[in-house]
């Protein structure tokens, strides 16, 4: 009994240790980040949501202003060489780390080196050898060489960073934010190892905020960094990121005022919330596209008419508005709609009405020898996520109704679904891709047969056209070439475009300056609190 009492007292002590948090309700912005961050190591973290913490705590050469526009960050200006292959960044004068140490150009070079180093086990190296092709990056990532001097990112002096690429890439500015290339405080890493990224007292950062508290599975508390160059314009003193996996709980926490910005909105609440608090509901396109890929090695899906018929038979508006109801935007192209300067093509039949599309679909399907009398049997592989499964069931229903197709939906856990893509057991793959930036090239480059063999698409013309685009240093002429490539892609209909996925966020009226950003950049330093 005595022991029981002692145990009880011990647990009581533990409970008492949870003294109520100091009241700072008015000067703290409470933001939801969904699941727990997978890492706070700035060169390793690859989660978009944890990226918000990174973007607040670190600053890249550039940063992303309200709406996600590229604005000068640690670099106050930059120049591009005439051939578009070399960028020179000029750092601001007097930049400091949160501990007061001077921030120098080499800190950015070290960050790229650490990201590429195979021992870091970072999945972000592809930004530097694939999204843009920095000289020497691929060899460092593949362990061909360990010589840092081979890298095309150099610091000729403390205030200059030079990036040399193998091909011009006007979108390089889109991947120089803190998510991709935060500077690295080498003395801290050497002294503390990676623990230096998770113990608030040891973390040295250079962004508008610095770490004050890190509680795994619960929250991260950031406080304003007095050594930040633009600290005078940072309005909110504290930002707290809360882990809340259950979207229903997160919504209630928002209602109770525990959160001012959510990570998601429960899908079944969207309609009601839009009616009741329209100014707090932010549903806007993200850079995630959903498309249904056809397995070109499974006849008759190697027949363009069959693929075209299947694509035309999908009523994309009804699918999103009546069946999935998650706020996704129906789409008839693959890479369009993110970069306003990109005028891409739409798939064949996009300009018809749905009735006309369905008539055309029946015609093409009959031509290929299929119809209600000779039904085509298909499997659709998708993930078990509720909206994805509902989407697949909706598509199956439309194919059944219009073409008499007998489609079986096969939902899989996400990890199994990812492996299934390469196992190739699918006829139709409920596919999705998150772009690395809000532009056409990130999507189109991914579909290159040379880059992604999993689609079994043989199309040298596409690779050739993408190679042409890759020689253009300026956005306009590059986008024109990219549009030609997208036409080749859409004409072959190796997938049916379905939708652009939305980001769904609730923002309390206390929070000022919230602007939807397709790439999902919402730096707290640009927000205000009333």
């Amino acid at each position: 009994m005595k022991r029981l009492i002692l145990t009880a007292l011990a647990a009581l002590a533990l409970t008492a240790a949870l003294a109520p948090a100091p009241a700072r309700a008015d000067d703290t912005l409470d933001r939801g980040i969904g699941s727990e961050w997978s890492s706070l190591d700035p060169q390793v973290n690859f989660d978009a949501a944890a990226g918000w913490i990174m973007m607040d705590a670190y600053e890249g050469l550039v940063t992303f202003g309200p709406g996600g526009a590229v604005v000068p960050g640690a670099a106050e200006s930059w120049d591009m060489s005439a051939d578009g292959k070399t960028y020179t960044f000029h750092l601001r004068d007097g930049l400091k780390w949160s501990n007061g140490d001077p921030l120098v150009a080499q800190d950015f070079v070290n960050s790229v080196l650490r990201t590429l180093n195979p021992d870091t086990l970072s999945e972000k190296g592809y930004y530097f050898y694939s999204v843009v092709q920095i000289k020497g990056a691929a060899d460092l990532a593949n362990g061909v060489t360990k010589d840092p001097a081979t890298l095309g990112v150099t610091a000729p002096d403390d205030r200059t960073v030079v990036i040399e690429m193998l091909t011009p890439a006007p979108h390089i500015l889109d991947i120089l934010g803190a998510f991709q290339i935060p500077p690295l405080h080498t003395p801290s890493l050497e002294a503390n190892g990676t623990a230096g990224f998770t113990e608030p007292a040891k973390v040295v950062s250079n962004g508008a905020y610095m770490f004050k508290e890190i509680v795994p599975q619960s929250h991260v508390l950031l406080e304003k960094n007095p050594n930040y160059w633009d600290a005078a314009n940072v309005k909110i003193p504290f930002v707290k990121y809360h882990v809340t996996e259950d979207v229903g709980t997160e919504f209630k926490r928002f209602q109770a005022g525990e959160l001012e910005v959510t990570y998601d909105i429960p899908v079944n609440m969207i309609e009601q919330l839009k009616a009741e608090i329209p100014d707090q509901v932010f549903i806007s396109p993200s850079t995630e596209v959903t498309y249904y890929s056809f397995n070109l090695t499974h006849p008759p899906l190697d027949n363009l008419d069959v693929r075209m018929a299947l694509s035309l038979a999908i009523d994309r508006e009804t699918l999103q508005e009546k069946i999935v109801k998650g706020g996704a935007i129906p789409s008839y192209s693959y890479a369009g709609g993110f970069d306003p300067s990109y005028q891409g093509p739409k798939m064949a039949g996009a300009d018809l009405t749905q009735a006309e599309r369905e008539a055309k679909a029946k015609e093409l399907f009959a031509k290929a020898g299929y119809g209600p009398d000779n039904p085509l049997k298909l499997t659709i592989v998708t993930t078990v996520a509720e909206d994805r499964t509902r989407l697949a069931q909706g598509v199956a229903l439309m194919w059944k109704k219009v073409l008499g197709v007998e489609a079986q939906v096969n939902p899989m856990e996400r990890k199994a679904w990812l492996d299934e893509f390469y196992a190739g057991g699918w006829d139709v793959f409920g596919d999705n891709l998150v772009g690395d930036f809000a532009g056409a090239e990130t999507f189109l480059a991914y579909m290159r047969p040379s880059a992604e063999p999993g689609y079994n698409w043989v199309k040298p013309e596409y690779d050739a056209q993408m190679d042409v685009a890759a020689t253009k240093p300026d956005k306009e002429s590059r986008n024109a070439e990219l549009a030609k490539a997208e036409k080749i892609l859409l004409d072959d209909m190796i997938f049916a475009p379905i939708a652009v996925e939305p980001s769904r966020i609730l923002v309390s009226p206390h929070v000022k300056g919230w602007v939807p950003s397709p790439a999902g950049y919402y730096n707290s330093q640009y927000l205000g609190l009333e």
Partner: protein
Amino acid sequence: MLRFVAKRLWGGGLTLAALVTLTFFVMRLAPGGPFSKNRKISPEVLANIQEAFHLDEPVWQQFGRWLWGLAHLDLGPSTRFRDYSVNDIIASGLPWSLTIGFWAIVVASLVGIALGIAGALRRNGASDYLAGTIGVIGIAIPIFVIGPLAQAFFALRLGWVPVGGIAGGWNALILPILVLALPNIAYISRLTRSSMIEVLRENYVRTARAKGLGARRTVLRHVLKGALLPVIAYLGPATAAIITGSILIETIFAVPGIGRHFVDAALNRDYPLVMGITILYGGLVIVANIATDLVRGWIDPRVRHD
């Protein structure tokens, strides 16, 4: 006594060994792996990652490596949470799960036994109906319905406690503890009530009453001891179940315990984390069962082990 404990521990150890072996190998049969995620990653980088986590080795060799680590109390690195080892994750999550579990079992025992006694002493009275109603609600309505309802009422409507998280201080734990305790209050009150009724009819109780012992003393001295035996038999496994079974509670109330990690780790194929929590939970259940048997032996000479 010692022999009994040693024997049970030996049996428990064998069970645990079978449990972890089976889990380790069955887990590998599930399609997908911890790093089958980003199709953009170059094969070389992926190979590096696989090598660093020893996923390129044959499964039996990985098992050997894991056992070797276990012998050194090192459960390995997590593949999903790259900043932390499995030991770190358990060390940060277990106190929360234990706190909630401990208080839930305390609340469940006190309230459940009180309701049970009240029900048995005044059968078909108001308190009996109240206990019966709580019993039906607690057993029949699942936690994932009660939880959100409790949040909506006590946190949103009345504003007495936070909806979730722990950042709001200790009162954030009240709802999860109560909701976790509720089904157990129900079971314990029904168990207490029925065994009380049985014991009240025993000859020794009648004798005590006949000798002029007051009603209160009879109940506290004689009836309760006998009536609580089945409750104690239930409490052991229930304690283990409450601590390991708070997965839903931790998700609904955003409590940073380890229950949440269990499901998440399985879905993310975080093999080391799944193994770590499996062995921890397995050990807890075994220890709780042995402890229950010992307590029962201490209270009831008929089931004494020597």
